[in-house]
Each structure stands twice: as structure tokens, then as C-alpha cells.
């Protein structure tokens, strides 16, 4: 059942990728709601797959690395859809959809039996902490997408080679304003994620903070985004802000994967 949902999600992600890229390639427009509709279908199927797996495992399915990747992809799609409701930035789907294809496919390929959690981690804090932290990351993912599109549009305008298709991208001001707003949201969510983690750690391990790779890198990420937000508020904007947003997100993804694969601590996969 879970596999069927995941396959369905992958197919929809692929279709929505095509639909989001279509206006960049062809002068003939598609129905405006087609691409977001496909992405929405993918999101529902993907969420269904995660729900089925979580129910059968008895806890939220974000314990294995690939589970976490899959969960992140699903949230990214969801946040991207939410943002599209608020601003004319459908083009973000052209960045998010292919990322989701990769993440959902990864989950599909590396899928294994779910492992039992140590009893110490069975807690209502698990879904709260994990969802907030991942939601924050997904929001940063959208900021990253907006920045990528910003740089693309900016280069088109600077180099003056703007073909017709690129003139349909959202305006720089729209992308820059979106980037700023989204960063603030992501930062708030990440902060809550870290705080709930600390509270939970106090319950489980009797201390608010353990200096382990995962939480430490979260803190590094948090400081990085705090600095980025600070500079944005101080008046940084445009290309520099976009480039920094991209750099921050790359560090975030890198540290996430690095921790999962290289230094698993008590936090996360190895449950020491």
C-alpha cells in the first residue's frame, strides 16, 4: 500500500516537473492550475505513503535516513503549494518538483522494513519536534528555490539575453520579498524545532542540550540563518542575499546528510 502511494507520488512529481517547465520551453500556455494541481496530487499521495508507513510502524516515519528525506520532500512540496497560494510564483515548482522526484525516488529505492524505536524515544515530542524542525527546513528549501530563480532572472536581465520565456519569470522584487518573508518563517520554525528538541532532551536524557553532531549542526545552521536574517534586515537584498540563502541551504542539506551518514550519534538513527 505504502509502495503504491509512493509510486503514485513519483509519477505525479514527474508530471508536475514537466508542467512547471513547459512555459519555459513552449510559447503555448498550459492551463494555469495544471502544474500546481499535479504537484498537489503528488503531495497527497506522498503524505498518504508516509501516513501508511507511520501507522504500521506505530510512530512517525522519520527515523531512517531515507524516511527523513522522504518526509522532507513531502513537506517541501506542501510548503511550495502554500506559498503559491499567496504569491504569483508558480515557477518555484520547477525547482521543487524535480527535487521531490529525487527524494521520493530515493525513499522508494532504499525503502526497508521500519525499525523499532527504543522506548525512550516514544513520546508525543517526537512528531512535534521532528515536524517543526523539518517544516523549518522545507521553508528554507522554498527560500532556496526562490533565490535560485532570482539569480536566474537577475542574470537574464543583466546579460540582456533574456529570451521571451524568461520574461515570464516573477519580478526580482517579488522573489526578493518572498525570500525575505519565507526566511523569517523558516527561522521561527527552526527555532521552535530546536526548543522542542531541548525540552524533549530534558525529559529523556535529563539535560537540555547534548553536544552531539546533530544538535550542534542544527545550532550552526540556526546561527547562520540568524546572521542571514540580520543582514537582510540591515538592508542586504538582491543577488547577495539570494546567493547567501543558497549557500545556507547547501550547508543545511550537507550537514543533515553528513550527520546521518557519517557521525550518527545518540540523536537520530543510532539511538545510543
Amino acid at each position, binding site marked *: 500500500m505504502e509502495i503504491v502511494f509512493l509510486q503514485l507520488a513519483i509519477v505525479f512529481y514527474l508530471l508536475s516537473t514537466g508542467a512547471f517547465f513547459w512555459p519555459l520551453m513552449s510559447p503555448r500556455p498550459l492551463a494555469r492550475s495544471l502544474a500546481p494541481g499535479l504537484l498537489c496530487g503528488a503531495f497527497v499521495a506522498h503524505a498518504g505513503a508516509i501516513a501508511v508507513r507511520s501507522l504500521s510502524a506505530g510512530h512517525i516515519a522519520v527515523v531512517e535516513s531515507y524516511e527523513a528525506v522522504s518526509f522532507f520532500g513531502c513537506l517541501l512540496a506542501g510548503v511550495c503549494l502554500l506559498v503559491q497560494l499567496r504569491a504569483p510564483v508558480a515557477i518555484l515548482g520547477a525547482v521543487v518538483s524535480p527535487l521531490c522526484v529525487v527524494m521520493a525516488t530515493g525513499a522508494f529505492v532504499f525503502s526497508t522494513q521500519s525499525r523499532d524505536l527504543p522506548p525512550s524515544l516514544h513520546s508525543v515530542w517526537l512528531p512535534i519536534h521532528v515536524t517543526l524542525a523539518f517544516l523549518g527546513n522545507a521553508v528554507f528549501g522554498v527560500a532556496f528555490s526562490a533565490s535560485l530563480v532570482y539569480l536566474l532572472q537577475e542574470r537574464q536581465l543583466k546579460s*540582456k539575453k533574456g529570451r521571451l520565456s524568461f520574461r515570464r519569470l516573477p*519580478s526580482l*522584487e*517579488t522573489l526578493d520579498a518572498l525570500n525575505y518573508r519565507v526566511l523569517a518563517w523558516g527561522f521561527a520554525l527552526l527555532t521552535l524545532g530546536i526548543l522542542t528538541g531541548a525540552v524533549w532532551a530534558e525529559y529523556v536524557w535529563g539535560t537540555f542540550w547534548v553536544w552531539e553532531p546533530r544538535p550542534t549542526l542544527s545550532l550552526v545552521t540556526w546561527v547562520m540563518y540568524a546572521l542571514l536574517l540580520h543582514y537582510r534586515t540591515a538592508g542586504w537584498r*538582491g543577488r547577495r542575499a539570494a546567493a547567501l540563502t543558497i549557500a545556507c541551504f547547501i550547508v543545511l542539506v550537507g550537514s543533515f546528510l553528513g550527520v546521518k551518514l557519517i557521525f550518527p550519534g545518540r540523536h537520530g538513527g543510532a539511538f545510543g
Partner: protein
Amino acid sequence: MDSRTTNLLLMGLNHRSAPVEVRERLAFDEDALEPALRRLVDHMVVREGAIVSTCNRVEILACTPDPQAAGEKITTLLAEARHVARPLFEPHLYTRVGKEAVSHLFRVTSSLDSMVVGEPQILGQVKDAYAVSSTLGALGVILHRCFHKSFSVAKRVRSETRIAAKAVSISSAAVDLARSIFDHLDDKTAMVIGAGEMGEQTVKHLQSNGIGTVLVTNRTFARAVELARQCNGTVVPFDQLHRHLHLADVVVGSVGMNGYLLVPAVVDEVLRERKRRPMFFIDLGVPRNFDPRLNDIENVFLYDIDDLEKVIEDNKDEREREAIKAESIIAEEVESFWAWLSSMEVTPTIIALRDRAETIRQKEVEKALASMKDLPPQARQAVEAMSAALMNKLLHPPIAYLKASGRHGAGPEAEGVSTVRRIFGLDEDA
């Protein structure tokens, strides 16, 4: 062609041949136009004449039996009427004779010779110049016809090619680009530097797309006030341009000047003042108003007129086809006008009619002037001019009639010719 007794001569300078310093010194304002035209048309060397003077060009068209003498006369006239030494402008002057003169006038009127090809204002400007020359009686059959033909050619070019769409699309390309940079235009400010035609058109286009505020600055203050009034803008004195620059999100430059008005150091400073909010510079000036290196500054976007043309150049072949189409319309119309002129020229009846009229005119003028010996030379000229105008006007209908009948085949032509000859007594001894 050299044996013809009527030829056309066009002399002038435009934005390509002459820098603005020369153009502005030679340009005729309305008050200067009348005495210049009276001087130009002496009914001997120059039988008919017209002056077209805009900020981008001065063109003098003359109908003359002797283009060389007329050329000399025009050059002297320019030097004396505008108080400019000949060596200063002579190298920038171009001379077109015969068909080429006609072709040049047609190209100018059709806006093919404009700085921004296809801009619509030039037709109105030529029409105004025609009206002035016409009211002063400086035009005769030939130039009347020539100008009317040029208006219909301009109309044909406008309706049969997409040349005219180009000027509009330059300002709309600028607006499109502004929309790629800015989300809303209604909270943005545009500053237009220089009240040139394209700048005006672009700022009006921005305005119809909802730009919030318009600032206008120009070296000639009155012109800035005029444009500001038209687009509900605020005037900024030209020397305070830099102080107000930080207010502008879109800066349109259309100043005719050499050297850059804005350089990177200045704009960098302005950007700091604006907290690096993006600025869009649209450089419509030729030569360019803004240093091209502005584009290298972060959050600054600079497009000059060539860049804008490239943006709209979606289909190069189509543009070339349009240009070829326009040029071939003009070539066709020049031929048709020239055929008319030649037929007029070779028709012996018309020559005879003209000669008869000219003989009478000269005789009568001499008689009249002889009785008023102490008339000042100006008044003498006026009498000359008036008599010539009278003759020209009187002869216009019969000559037009002859032309018309000439186009209807042999029978009626012969009839028409003999009628005219009889009415005017051309076969009797004068």
C-alpha cells in the same frame, strides 16, 4: 536631367551627420522661420522652398532651375540667418539633388530617417513645416505636390509595414523590463532626464502602466515644466539632478549630449542612500547618457537603446522584411513623383504657360517698381514674392488640369492642351 529647368535640391543635417551643438545652433525657431523662408524663395534661383526644423534635424528643400547656385544660396542663408560660421556646419551638411532629394524627404516623413525609426512625431513636424511654408506662399505646384505625396507615403509605410510598431515597442519593452524587476509600479518613481521624444513616450508608457510618481528634469527648464504638466510630474532643476536621484527607481535618459551624465561612482553612492533597492536605467540617448559600466553594479540594471532593440528583436528576418518593404514603397513613390515632375517638365504647354506667366510677372513688377524708386529692398522683395505667389497660385489649377488630362490618354489630352492654349492665348504673340 541636367537640362531640366526645374530640379529639386535638399540640403540639411540630422542627428547622424551633425552633433547636437551644431544642430541646436542651426535650428530655426518659429520666429526665425518666416524671414528665412522669405529670403530663401527669391523666385529666381529658388522658386519654391520649405524648411523643416526639429531638434534632430534641419532640412531645406528647394525647387530650383540651378541646384548649384541654390546650394550656395542655402549655405549662405544658413550661415547668415543663424549667425554660424560656415566652416562650423558645412562639413555636416548633406546635399541631395533630384530623385534623391525626393527620396530623402519621403524617408524623413515616413520616420525611416528618425533616431528611433518609426516614431510618430516627425510626420506632424513635417506637416507643421509645410503649413508654415505654405502660408507664407513659399510653395508652388511642385513642392505642394511633393509634400502631399510625402504625407501619403508616410501613411502607406505606416499601414503597410510594421515599422511604426517599433517605436512603440521600444517603450513597451522598457515597461516589460521594469515589470521584470519591480513587482508593483504604483509605489515606484520614474525620473526622466531630458525631454526628448523617446523619453517622453517612455515615461507616458510607464505612466499608463501605473507608475506612481514622475520626476522630470531637463536642461531647458521650460521644456521640463511642459512635460511635467503633461504627465502630472514634478520638475527637478537640472543642476539638482544628483540630489534627487535616490528617489528614482526607474531613470530614463534621453538627453542629447556627449559624455556620460551618470558614472558608476555617483550611482554607487545613490544606491547606498537607497539601501541598495534596485534601480533600472533606461538610456535612450544617442550618444549614450549613462556609463555602460552602471550595469556592473549590484542591483542596477542598465539598458541602452540597442539593448532594448535586441529585446524586441524577436524575429530579425521579419524586421529586415519590413525595412525592405518600406524602402521599396518609397522607391516606388519616388518614381511616381518623378514621372509626374518629368511629365510636367516636358509638357511644352506647361512650359509655355509658365514662360508666359513669368514674362508678364517680370514686366509688371518692373513697371510697378519703376514708379516707386525709393522702396526699401525688403519691400521690393516682398513685391517680387507676392507676384510670384500670385502667378503660382493662378497657374496651379490649369497646370493640374493639364496633368490630369495627360493621364487620361491621347484624345482628352489633346483637347485639354488646346483648351488651355486657347484660354491663355499661348499661340498668339505676347
